[in-house]
């Protein structure tokens, strides 16, 4: 990106976006690997052992970034979807579709790591606290998106329908979160909460930050790589694809 005034709409064509994504994703992948290594190293070797929770707490270095990413990706996905509906661009819809599986993966990862953390701490594999329950519902929203995507054959219609779904979802996520919190406090169920992480020493914060950034880079890299595959699949009849495949 060398020219000062970039015509962003140039990249709205699948063809140019394909090549742009192709140039960009290796960088993000490299950054992801670097940050992940750094983050994991801090998580496992540098951060001190917690007085109450022992070594087991280290899983929050994966759990917290994963849940943050799952929520962030949903918002970004809805953003791309909204852009696609407003501007009637094809690439926006493809980006939303490219992001969805990664978002779902992070939601799932968050739930699994939450369970892995919970077991040694509270003795059960699952706790119906507000955060975990909201995360579960978020996973359902992702799965719904993916299911709708796969059941509509015509790609443009699928993208638009999923866009409406994503926008409805993103409006509902705060409502759902609020209602689940309300539900939780009312029932006095789990007095334990998986967000009660020990007061963070600065090394822990650094480790957390590194992991969050690593997941960001990973998500961008994977989304860009995936959107390239989507573009190729959808535009396979276009001339430029034939040339690119040669």
């Amino acid at each position, binding site marked *: 990106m060398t020219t000062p005034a970039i015509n962003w709409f140039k990249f709205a064509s699948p063809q140019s976006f394909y090549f742009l994504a192709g140039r960009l994703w290796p960088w993000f992948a490299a950054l992801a690997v670097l940050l992940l290594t750094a983050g994991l190293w801090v998580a496992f070797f540098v951060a001190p052992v917690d007085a109450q929770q022992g070594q087991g707490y280290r899983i929050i270095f994966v759990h917290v970034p994963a849940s943050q990413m799952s929520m962030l990706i949903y918002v970004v996905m809805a953003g791309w979807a909204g852009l696609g509906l407003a501007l009637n661009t094809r690439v926006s819809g493809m980006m939303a579709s490219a992001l969805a599986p990664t978002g779902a993966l992070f939601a799932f990862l968050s739930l699994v790591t939450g369970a892995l953390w919970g077991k040694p701490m509270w003795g059960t594999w699952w706790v119906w606290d507000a955060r975990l329950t909201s995360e579960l519902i978020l996973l359902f929203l992702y799965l719904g998106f993916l299911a*709708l995507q796969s059941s509509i054959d015509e790609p443009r219609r699928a993208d638009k329908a999923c866009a409406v779904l994503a926008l409805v979802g993103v409006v509902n996520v705060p409502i759902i979160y609020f209602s689940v919190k309300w539900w939780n406090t009312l029932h006095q169920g789990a007095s334990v909460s998986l967000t009660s992480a020990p007061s963070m020493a600065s090394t822990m914060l650094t480790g957390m930050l590194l992991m969050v950034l690593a997941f960001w880079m990973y998500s961008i890299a994977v989304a860009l790589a995936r959107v390239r595959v989507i573009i190729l699949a959808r535009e396979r009849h276009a001339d430029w694809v034939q040339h690119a495949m040669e």
Partner: protein
Amino acid sequence: MRVSMSQEMGTTSVLWAVLQREVSLAMRQKGEVLTPLVFFVVIASLFPLGIGPESALLLRMAPGVLWVSALLAAMLSLQRLFSTDYSDGTLEQMALSTTPLGLLVLAKSVAHFLLSGLPLVLVAPVLGLQFGLDERALGVLVASLLLGTPTLSLIGSIGAALTLGVRGAGVLLSLLILPLYIPVLIFGAGAVEADAAGLGAGGHLSLLAALLVVSLFFAPLATTAALKISLE
């Protein structure tokens, strides 16, 4: 060929015509209205069979069980909200009508509530008695369902519009809208429980009312967008 005596029709009259049409169609196919109702009763009866007849436990579970059953029953009839009109071409004509599609959708959702939600509200007290709820609790239950089921119809219309003509629409519709139903469920069942716990149902019921108002505005918008996408 005369275009003689036709006069202009006001928007309200058109919406009323839509409502009347939905109701008269349903009356001609009464089975379609009664089946979800029977389903409601059957599901609610399954829970005690699965969990045991211990009355204290059933009493505790009643609000949640009844609300979940009502929710599932309300969802059953959603698929037919637009599908017949879609397949015979009426939906296209509605999209081209001089009355905005959003208002027509609203009229249809109201009709859906009257035909599927309201019967549930009326039958729920009977089921509540089976679970041992007292009169006061029954009253709160009815109030919560009365406020909640219209919202269910409205949110459900979005799902119905998105899955029009799609393979496996029925199950997919459920998957899409059940997460969106969760706040209504929480506040609805919560109202009865809060009242039973002596905390008063006012807060929950107001939240239900708020959800209803928000859906009244936004659901038809989303549904219209989804319908236009399905009609392309």
